[in-house]
């Protein structure tokens, strides 16, 4: 089994997603490019000490929308 297929299968299994062999193969075909693009997010010098664009508020409440 080519390595990307095995890795994709392992990751999907870990998430409990019952993808077919055909779906795994399709995802594996794009997986090296996905991994390369994702790794590139760590490369720019400007991101080394950047805070993430996440939100968290200590006083937040869940408010219904109606």
């Amino acid at each position: 089994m080519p390595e990307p297929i095995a890795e994709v299968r392992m990751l999907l299994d870990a998430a409990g997603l019952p993808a077919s062999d055909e779906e795994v193969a399709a995802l594996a075909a794009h997986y090296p490019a996905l991994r390369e693009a994702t790794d590139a997010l760590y490369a720019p010098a400007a991101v080394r000490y950047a805070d993430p664009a996440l939100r968290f508020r200590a006083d937040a409440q869940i408010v219904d929308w109606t």
Partner: protein
Amino acid sequence: MSELPLTLTEAAAALRAGTTTSRRLTERAIATADRADPVLGCYLHRFDELALATADAADAELAAGVDRGPLQGIPFGVKDILAMAEGPTTAQSDVLDPAWGAGRDAPVVARLKAAGAVITGKTSTMEFAIGMPDDSKEFPVPRNPWDPATWPGGSSSGTGAGVAAGLFYAGLGTDTGGSIRIPAAFCGITGLMPTFGRVPKSGCVPLGYSLDHIGPMARSAEDCAAVLAVLAGPHDSDPDCVDAPFTAPRCPDDLVGLRVGVVRDGHFPPDSDPALLDAFDDMATELADAGASLTPVTLPYRAEMLTANMLTLACEALAYHRTDAQRRWADYYPATRAMLARGALVSGADYVQAQRMRRVAQDALRRTLTDVDVLLCPTTSVAAPRLDAFLSGASSIMTLLGHIHTGYWDSVGNPVLALPMGFTSAGLPLSVQLAGRPFDEAGLLRVGQLLQRRTTWHLRQPAPVGASAGVAA
């Protein structure tokens, strides 16, 4: 059709001048849907009786001097991932729990109702706003009124096609990777993705919590401004939504003093439509002729923001869907499954890194937008693709990605206005984006209004579609 107003703004003026009524506008909208929707697949649910009752109420109020503003009495479509009390919300999926949002209005829908809009129905999308055209389940496949053999774009497909075909004057779309601007582009209409946090997104089936935008799709920038003025404003249920006042701007006389950054890098791949470059240059020339100064600009961290958009969307969507996906995998469409699965292929650290990179890109773009006031770039570099390739499985969203230039803006959260800018040799619409500083929708809309005063692309209409028009899908 030509005897009734073409734009929302014109229709609002006609209602107040007494030259038409909301009932006439609504009956025309219903008749157009009767003819065209069996081909176009814009609606998942229609509210004909409710719409006529709302129209009559609008006419009565206007006659009594009760003026709720320009949306009063205007036929309007709502994308079916937004909750509305009168009808089910399906998100074009067999998976969504019918109890979700049942009997309730999303805040934006409540605001439309309070403004007197005549909501004619819930419009089609792609499954959970991330699928692709697929005829394997019972939902309609949305088609483009400019050529029903082509895709209207997505995921706000039904809203885009419906505005273009005259089923309603305006509608709500949502945009997480381009889902307002892509159908606006392919259908030849105007679409506004507001600043992230301008419009409350509660009551919308989430796709990407940190990327979702709700915004207007209509024929003109002036129409979009009128809708945004109703939608904008904070709501306690959406912690991202801020209190930033918005008032629909007036069209300026010229653009003297406006600094426009013209973005070309990455937006004109070799297999772009042959008409794209000239159409884009013509729009840049219009801006210059109106007094604006033009400067070449490169978008900072473009590749990283495209990755961040896809990665963030996939991870946030998987978090929402994972329990259902584990149990009901086969009930999702294949394209939806493929996108959700991508969220499992990256790590938690990767997700956080994408959010760090978004912060860096936001800051770099902020600096870019101190040198220029707005940025100009194509929305897509091709026109609407044929549907048959998607329906046969020969094409997927991956084949289009290099031609779609919207996801960058969802990652950074700035407002973007997509405007028609011409046609291909096959008669399909092309579109340009104007992007601005956060919460400067008014600035974008001023520029858009002036461009649309100088051009007529937004007023072009496709030939009538449907049985009585003699046009088959």
